[in-house]
């Protein structure tokens, strides 16, 4: 076509002389990376920082107030106590990212576990079959919510509130008012009550680090191949180093004998590698697959996602199914810990699950947050419950403090949004 600019009218020129940062992808040295991170934080994108800070403060306070808090036995107990909430929090992240909510996630696992425990009573079904059925209930409930939310357009708050009430009724029918069914011993029981042998704990840590390292290396190789610059390797090693040190500390701690003189008890509870697996697979899905990317896109701007060719209905629907199935997994961890199922199972935990995600830095408005945020947030709430229990506070005080933390976290989120609204656009 025509050469250069020969059109009349105001002269148009965008090329300024500032050295182009393009092709650097914004990555420079370590200093640049740190600076850009600090800038993001100042801009309101704090992620889990407040929760991590809060966690450190809480641990210090509880450790100072009660010497029992940091004992090996209590730490191990903390892990198994936190596991159901951590898992439920991760489940909810999938729908919270869409800007939706699932208030029925708790009773969903209540129903699924009620069915599971009842069916596996002596003389009943084999546990693997019952487990499949329980997960199937998760798929069905998630599909039900997804249908009304994604296809019909009913607000998820209303649909899941309806299910929250309705499924409690189902629970009463299955279990009977005031009834309790004991979980019969099975591998399900072992999840929260048995530990890995010490060597397996170390193997677990090595596998996690190995996978993270391999993925990071693969990424760098790919970027190099396409000519995209890599962030400084130091950052990668620093991240891996932090995970390695924290992980080694935890594994070492849990591998200490925390039993009595009569019976030794040591090792990482079996639930820990299961939760880690969910965290890693889930993070992989959210960060590296279309499904995950589209969840973020829909949470950010549904119309934009639709115009870009994203099947919004299908993605939303699937996200609700993922949420409900993971909720059932949280139920498995609960029933394994508690050892029984009653008609009220899962009724209260759902709001703590939402709180866990929000405390960890997942936005209720959609589009912002990661699975690890829910893990951190759930840990905060579990530490509060555990620590205040040790200090002999009443359950009432515990609930009040947890509620206060939630409001605080939501306030931080709202302020951060305001701030990023002011700096951006």
């Amino acid at each position: 076509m025509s050469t250069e600019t020969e059109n009349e009218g105001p002269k148009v020129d965008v090329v300024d002389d500032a050295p182009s940062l393009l092709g650097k992808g914004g990555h420079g040295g370590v200093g640049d990376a740190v600076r850009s991170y600090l800038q993001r934080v100042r801009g309101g994108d704090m992620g889990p920082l407040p929760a991590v800070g809060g966690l450190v403060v809480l641990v210090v306070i509880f450790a100072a107030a009660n010497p029992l808090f940091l004992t090996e036995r209590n730490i191990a107990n903390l892990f198994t106590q936190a596991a159901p909430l951590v898992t439920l929090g991760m489940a909810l992240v999938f729908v919270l990212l869409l800007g939706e909510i699932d208030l029925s996630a708790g009773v969903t696992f209540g129903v699924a576990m009620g069915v599971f425990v009842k069916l596996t009573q002596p003389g009943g079904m084999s546990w693997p079959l019952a487990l499949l059925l329980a997960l199937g209930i998760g798929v069905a409930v998630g599909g039900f919510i997804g249908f009304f939310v994604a296809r019909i357009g009913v607000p998820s708050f209303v649909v899941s509130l309806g299910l929250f009430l309705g499924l409690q009724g189902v629970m009463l029918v299955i279990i009977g008012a005031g009834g309790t069914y004991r979980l019969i011993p099975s591998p399900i029981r072992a999840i929260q009550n048995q530990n890995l042998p010490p060597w397996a704990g170390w193997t677990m840590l090595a596998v996690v680090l190995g996978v993270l390292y391999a993925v990071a290396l693969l990424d760098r190789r790919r970027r190099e191949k396409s000519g995209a610059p890599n962030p400084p390797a130091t950052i990668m090693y620093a991240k891996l180093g932090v995970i390695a040190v924290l992980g080694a500390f935890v594994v070492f701690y849990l591998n200490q004998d925390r039993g009595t003189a009569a019976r030794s008890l040591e090792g990482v509870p079996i639930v820990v590698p299961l939760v880690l697996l969910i965290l890693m697979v889930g993070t992989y899905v959210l960060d590296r697959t279309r499904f995950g990317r589209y969840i973020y896109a829909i949470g950010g701007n549904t119309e934009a996602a639709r115009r870009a060719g994203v099947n919004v209905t299908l993605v939303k629907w699937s996200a609700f199914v993922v949420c409900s199935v993971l909720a059932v997994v949280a139920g498995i961890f609960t029933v394994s810990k508690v050892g029984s199922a009653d008609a009220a199972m899962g009724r209260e935990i759902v709001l703590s699950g939402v709180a866990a995600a929000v405390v960890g830095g997942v936005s209720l408005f959609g589009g912002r947050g990661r699975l690890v945020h829910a893990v951190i947030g759930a840990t905060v709430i579990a530490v509060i419950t555990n620590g205040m229990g040790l200090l002999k506070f009443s359950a009432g005080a515990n609930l009040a403090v947890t509620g206060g933390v939630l409001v605080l976290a939501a306030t931080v989120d709202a302020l951060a949004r305001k701030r990023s609204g002011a700096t951006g656009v």
Partner: protein
Amino acid sequence: MSAIIELRSITKSFGPVDVLKGVDFTAHEGRVTALVGDNGAGKSTLIKGLAGVQPYDGGQVLFEGSPVTLHHPRDAARLGIEVVYQDLALCDNLDIVQNMFLGREELAGGTFDEGRMEAEAARALQTLSVKTVKSLRQKVASLSGGQRQTVAIARSVVKKAKVVILDEPTAALGVAQTAQVLGLVRRLADSGVAVIIISHNLQDVFAVADDISVLYLGTMTARLEASQTSRDDVVGYITGTKRMTEVDA
């Protein structure tokens, strides 16, 4: 020069209202064609038909000389027709690369090939000589209006679009940013793309367009070369006080 897109006697009505009454329109590779007209003249309807969002009732659409049907946005996308909407359709919570590749992510071995996408995004922005973006991994929320428009336009480059339709690309921008975006539009056309730009701002139209097509109440009243006409003439056609009896293609 042959047209990449040619519309022949396109009609469209909503109930009893004839919005397009036999409209002819062409767009050429490497040229910026401005589509102007007053509110209600049928600009949006014409564009929605091209995008496949609202199919035309009658008439013929020729793409690179052969007749095509545009019944679905997918049809348009397959031909390489991209629309950059006024409200930009970007996700604030995603970064520039993620936005540019939304819906057409590059996969390798089942996962995102971020390196490849980042490199291609950089190349697309380079074709448009964009140098105002600091980092490709910036969230779109942190960009200015002009930069957001830049990302939206660059997205069509990544998609290797042959025809890019811009709906009021400068409507919400300040003076400097308008100049930036118009420069971008020019370079997009210079790279061989047929650009169709809808604008109310005649100053912008004359700054960037090669051809000007004027819609007046559902008919194409004028098709002009920008260098051969004046602003007063175009205003005349838009308001209906002037009329072209015969139109040279």
